[in-house]
């Protein structure tokens, strides 16, 4: 390679390396803030490396798996309460609104709202997190992962929710 090309290549590559380093450091510094949500374990024990815990009243997102048998629906309104779990810690989510279609026990859920007690979140939005596994119904049934639609009361169905 002739010297001029070599020089240009060195300049381009070192600029690239410099930018990569800067972006890497910025992302590393921001890494806690880029996380979309806290897990219930992090709410109780703090984030892994910084130990930052959310304070009561703070608006946060909490992501975890819905505990089987914990979903309690109010018969007269859309109010619903359920527990999210991760690494043995449990958080209670209170929500008043329509749950996404994928909501069911054992499903990954992200709830967005404010913390009203150390382990209670009043959610204004509930999103279902889908995993990367796709399979036809027959295979899922043979694995015992059949999908159950959420149960609504007759009144809710009449109202069209």
């Amino acid at each position, binding site marked *: 390679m002739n010297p001029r090309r070599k020089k*240009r290549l060195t300049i381009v590559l070192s*600029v690239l390396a410099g930018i990569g380093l800067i972006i890497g450091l910025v992302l590393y510094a921001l890494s806690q803030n880029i996380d979309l949500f806290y897990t219930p374990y992090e709410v109780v024990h703090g984030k892994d490396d910084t130990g930052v815990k959310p304070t009561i009243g703070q608006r946060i997102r909490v*992501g975890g798996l819905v505990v089987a048998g914990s979903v309690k629906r109010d018969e007269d309104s859309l109010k619903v309460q359920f527990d999210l779990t991760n690494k043995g810690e449990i958080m209670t989510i209170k929500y008043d609104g329509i749950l996404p*279609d994928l909501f069911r026990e054992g499903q990954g859920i992200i709830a967005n709202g404010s913390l009203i007690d150390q382990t209670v979140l009043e959610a204004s939005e509930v*999103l279902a*997190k889908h995993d990367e*596994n796709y*399979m036809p119904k027959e295979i899922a049934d043979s694995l015992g992962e*059949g999908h159950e639609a959420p149960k609504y009361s007759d009144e809710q169905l009449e109202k069209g929710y």
Partner: protein
Amino acid sequence: MWKWLHPYANPEVSYHFTGKLIPWFSKLTFVLLTIGIIWALLFVPADYQQGNSFRIFYLHVPAAMLSMGIYVGMAIAALSSLVWQIKLADASAAAMAPVGAVMTAIALFTGAAWGRPTWGTWWIWDARLTSELILLFLYLGVIALHNAFEDKTLAGKAAGILSLVGVVNIPIIKYSVEWWNTLHQGSTVSKLGAPSMSSEMYWPFLVCLLGFVCFISWVICIRFRNEVLARNAMRPWVRDYVKNVEVR
């Protein structure tokens, strides 16, 4: 080592070479996309949780993969243009940018349309979605710079620097779902390891992906030829070529 590549730095040779490729890419695109889309939409079984809405996977994933792939290709072209000052590399980078931007837009749009029924929201500012949106803005910036200067060499240099700087975004998009907690799920298909989907869903995906690859190659070849002609309009070979071309 690179001797075989040298003739293709000549615009005339490249122009005629890509001209020979176009009919192959166009035929392959029609065959593969027809088979792939019909297979994916009509014959693949529905997903056990999402039902039929998962079928958007067959557009979303190829478009998202290619949005990153085209960007890497464009950055490599920009690097060779900056270091070796190959003029054709600029023309190919200019040809690739809009195609990549469209692929990014398709990935964002199909993702939003799928996110609404599945997640419960069109958009969320998580790491994967945000970095893919930044990729769209990078593409738009590169396109704008290519068109901002009368002098194509200068334009190529400016756009090339932006595309090289933007390349740090590619690993961020790719690994965002592993580095941070995101709403977007992890990769279903990757180059290493078995896909997290059953094989009857995976095969039509490969056909669709290959169809998309042929489609973008086809469009990029056409755009590349136009760029070459526009940039060499004063050369004798272009004049002779245009004089002798059959008017249809």
